[in-house]
């Protein structure tokens, strides 16, 4: 600790102050408010764990929780499979591979809100036109049921984010030394063996990063949810973040929303950290 001189702390101070001001202090404040009956303006009394008990019996919150969990499971798998698949595709040497990279990455440059509105149009107008032309009933009435709302959200999220995940996988794929793969080839390893025994372990760090990103993004998603389904029909596609916002701003129940946000934070942090811890173990060094 000797070398941590004054200059060490001096360099650290701006970041620490900024972090404290916009993260730590508001969070502690939020924690405090979750034990009160705060309505966004003032509070009259401390209520102990009342808000936390209320939220356990809050059907909307519980429903949003399970909906979000299902959404996270599906999108994490889909995003990583598709992202890695695209990365493998565009790292093959063929004409137009860099053009394809740009194309795959493009959806990520459109904001989530706008994307939601664009896809809402596709789901309601495009899908139903296609459905009536092909006499495919399942293409009609999208976003009017919980199921179609769920898959609508999954499609939009995967479409938007897989390009981003692809970029990360590409970076790691290109870092694999060619000689290892060549050596394996000479030793007679098949393409599948080369992938599972060399490529996959070598990109394990990318896996850690991508899992973390897709997991936390899946839990925290709000803008697509808002613009695509708005939580409807009958609040069935409301995800955790949206339920919290609505509790605070529509029902003016800020203290309950703070309690929900605390639970939300603990869940996201715990799952993300456990995931990072386990995936780290699987990473290999040369």
């Amino acid at each position, binding site marked *: 600790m000797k070398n941590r001189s004054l200059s060490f702390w001096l360099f650290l101070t701006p970041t620490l102050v900024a972090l404290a001001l916009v993260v730590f202090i508001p969070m502690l404040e939020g924690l405090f408010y979750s034990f009160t009956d705060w*309505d*966004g*303006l*003032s509070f009259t009394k401390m209520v102990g764990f009342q808000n936390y008990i209320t939220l356990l019996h809050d059907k*909307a919150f519980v429903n949003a929780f399970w909906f979000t969990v299902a959404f996270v499971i599906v999108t994490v798998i889909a995003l990583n499979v598709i992202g890695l698949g695209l990365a493998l595709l565009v790292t093959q040497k063929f004409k137009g591979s860099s053009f394809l990279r740009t194309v795959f990455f493009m959806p990520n440059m459109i904001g989530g809100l706008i994307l939601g509105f664009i896809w809402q149009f596709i789901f*309601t107008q495009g899908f139903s036109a296609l459905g009536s032309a092909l006499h495919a009933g399942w293409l*009609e*009435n*999208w*976003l*009017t*049921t919980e199921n179609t709302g769920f898959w609508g959200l999954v499609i939009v999220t995967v479409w938007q984010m897989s390009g981003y995940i692809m970029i990360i996988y590409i970076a790691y794929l290109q870092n694999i030394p060619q000689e290892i793969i060549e050596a394996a080839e000479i030793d007679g390893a098949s393409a599948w063996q080369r992938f599972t025994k060399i490529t996959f372990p070598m990109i394990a760090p990318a896996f850690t990063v991508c899992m973390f990103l897709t997991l936390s993004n899946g839990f925290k998603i709000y803008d697509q949810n808002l613009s695509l389904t*708005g939580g*409807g*029909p*009958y*609040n*069935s596609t409301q995800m955790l973040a949206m339920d919290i916002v*609505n*509790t*605070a*701003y*529509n*029902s*003016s*129940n800020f203290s309950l929303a703070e309690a929900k946000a605390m639970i939300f934070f603990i869940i996201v942090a715990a799952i993300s950290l456990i995931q990072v811890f386990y995936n780290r173990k699987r990473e290999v060094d040369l």
Partner: protein
Amino acid sequence: MSHKFWKHLATVTMVAGAALTLAACGSSSAKKNVKITILQGKVENNKQFKTIAAQYEKSHPNVKIEVTSIGGGTQYDPVLKTRISSGNAPTIFSLAGPADVKQFKSHEADLSNTKAAKAAQPGTLDAVKTDGKTVGLPFNVEGYGFVYNKKVFREAGIDATSLTTYAKLQAAVKKIDSMKTKLGIKGVFALPGKEAWIMSDHLANLYIGQDFNGNALKLYNSKTMPFTKNADMKQMLDLQSTYSIKPVMQMDYSAQVNQYFSQGKTAMIQQGDWIYPTIEQIDKKFAKNDVGMIPIPVKGEEGKLPVGTSLYWAVNKQKSSAEQTAAKNFLDWLYTSKAGKKDVVNTLHFVPAYKGYSNFKMQDALTQTVFKYSNENKTIGWAFPGYTGTSWDPDVAQPNLQKYLSGKQSWTATVKNMKDGWKKQQASSSN
């Protein structure tokens, strides 16, 4: 080296601090003028309010008015709360109903003695009375019903104004439905299932409100919700959804108003006078010639239009008395002076909630209808502001009505959930 650094830092900080202090002094002592700030929730009238404020500043040179507008019911409250907690509270703000009156109690000045409050039409102040004080002044009154396409009705040979009972309406709807292709429409109604408030606020008001005489405050304070007329509501909701353009659950406000009604694809929609500017933007000629409004026929309330106020002005009592007086004077001027009245009707296109406007003519067919019913006192009160600010509306009423419309839940269960949800909310909010 480090000493020098700290000295520099100290100097810079002090200079900046001094500059700020000087600036602060400058703004408080240099002018004797009063500055009032307005934060209001009718974003569609932002431009008009700014024009009016500029005009007022011209005739009252010592008053400066700053207008800020925030859109939509859901985003207004958080902004107002933020402004209040950051010490930047507005002088004049808006309230949406009894729930807001309760929330912002510590900031509401008594407006009972203003000229505007005395000129307000009977009943318009009911929702903003608390402890014998009047804390809000209505922006305007609005009305809703079935906004219909006159051309379609003419071609179908139906006189819309004769549809005064449910039976007559039903017969007309069936007749129009049978002539759909000939009339060039996709459906008799366009019911926006996505826009739950159209059902939970406007439609439900006609039936839930009857138990409370259309009084929002009574409803807000009631422990129970009898909802005795729920069968009538089911009948009307079923009629609208059966003969609506499908799929109902995919339709939102803009599909209902912009896409279908304004382009002549539906015979009528359940909407209010506020949609006129939208129709006008899309088809000026259609808006001018072929748009009308009839009351929704409610058993026992035939020939009456639901007319009420969605927003009220409030004056912040934590501001200096000079500022409060200036604010009250401005509101009095707007609603009771000759120049102000002209602005209310001709610039804002408001249907006035005040007396003394009998020689004015409203600007369009929909506001004319509202004004007519309002003057003739043939109105049904707006009880729904008694629940729109509470969590029952978005958390209980709207999802349950949507479940019913999607066919996921029976009407009996829907009504039961709504009543139980209200009881539960009222029991927990009273302590």
